[in-house]
């Protein structure tokens, strides 16, 4: 029982670039990407009843939007990657399985991404342009394995760009703990978080 409670994500190094996790579809509960040449990494850790770095998925059926947040680190700084997607038709947990095979272009408007610190300002504007690919999903009654890749670029008002490349994720989304069906989590209609300089 204690072993179960202390179960962490499994970082399997990529055989080409071992700084990143290998692309997998096993629910290894890890993610990674290169961010302006630095490594962003996320591996879920658990001890007793405390979970860290679990991703969060929020669906807003009224506006047909989907919000996915991966929490990780660049060096010592906690850094979050967020995706805000529209028109995916997610109205309940089971609908997440329909993401399988979806390659979504991030246009910076309806579908966008952001990388930043854990807490965001409403006044900044960078919106990621690129792609997220949900290559694999596997659903059972209480959890979903969600695996895929991503890459995007954000540009702030001064023209400074942040390039997020070779992103990959392989998470287990727990229905009761990591999935939300309301709008309170994303508390700003115009989702405008600030980009950090990396």
């Amino acid at each position: 029982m204690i072993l179960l409670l202390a179960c962490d994500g499994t970082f399997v190094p990529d055989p080409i670039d071992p700084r990143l996790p290998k692309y997998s579809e096993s629910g290894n509960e890890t993610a990674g990407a290169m961010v302006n040449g630095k490594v962003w990494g996320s591996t879920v850790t658990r001890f007793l009843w405390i979970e860290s770095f679990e991703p969060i998925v929020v669906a807003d059926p009224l506006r047909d939007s989907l919000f996915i947040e991966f929490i990780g680190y660049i060096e010592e700084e906690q850094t979050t990657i967020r995706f805000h997607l529209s028109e995916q038709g997610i109205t309940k947990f089971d609908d997440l399985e329909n993401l399988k095979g979806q390659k979504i272009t991030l246009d910076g408007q309806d579908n966008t991404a952001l990388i930043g610190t854990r807490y965001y300002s409403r006044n900044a504007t960078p919106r990621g342009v690129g792609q997220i690919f949900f290559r694999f999903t596997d659903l059972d009654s209480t959890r979903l394995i969600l695996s895929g890749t991503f890459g995007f670029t954000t540009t702030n008002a001064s023209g400074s760009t942040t390039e997020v490349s070779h992103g990959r994720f392989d998470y287990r989304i727990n229905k009761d703990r990591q999935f939300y069906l309301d709008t309170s989590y994303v508390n700003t209609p115009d989702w405008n978080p600030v980009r950090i300089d990396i």
Partner: protein
Amino acid sequence: MRFIAIVTLFLLFFSSKALPLNAQQTSALDKRSQPVFGLLAGSSYSHIRYEIDLRNIMPSTGYYVGLSLTTYPFKKLNRLTLLGELGVVRKGYKQELGQRYDFNFNYLTLPILLEYDLIKSISLQGGVAGNKLISTSVEQGTLTYNNYDLDLIGGVNFFKNRKINVFTRVVYGVYSVLDYYEIDPLGNFTSEIRDIKHFNIIAGLKLNFNDNQ
């Protein structure tokens, strides 16, 4: 399972060579024709051949330990011997990307070699080895990398008729050990990869438990 079956067949084959059929036949054989058991140990320069974009790759150091059985199955070709070995070999490489990453692969290996006595103290070896991956230094390495490999082996054995031999070998991996994807910076799966082949140079000593001089 298939590998275990091959190992069992190998042991049965060489055991039959090791055991004389009967006393009369044994006495009729030349002393040299008796099989020789040996113990091998050596270290290796271990590297890989690859075509994918692996950056900052460096060779690593491995080892080889094993048991050998030398037999003389060719009565009219007394310069030719057949060697069977069973051992563990470590292959691998290193990668430097801000910090050092070690990729070590431990294989159960089954070399079968023909050895030709060039002169009294120098013999040439050639053959093949079947390998089964048993462990790696990489998390879930036996799931990431292919579990079976085949080697081509060429080498030289010095002082074959002494209690202690010196041997050196070039071990050339035939099959790719990695099946993976090429993923571009945006996350597109652009192609499937079959790459990374081992390359080792081994040098070591062989201790013969009984000699044929």
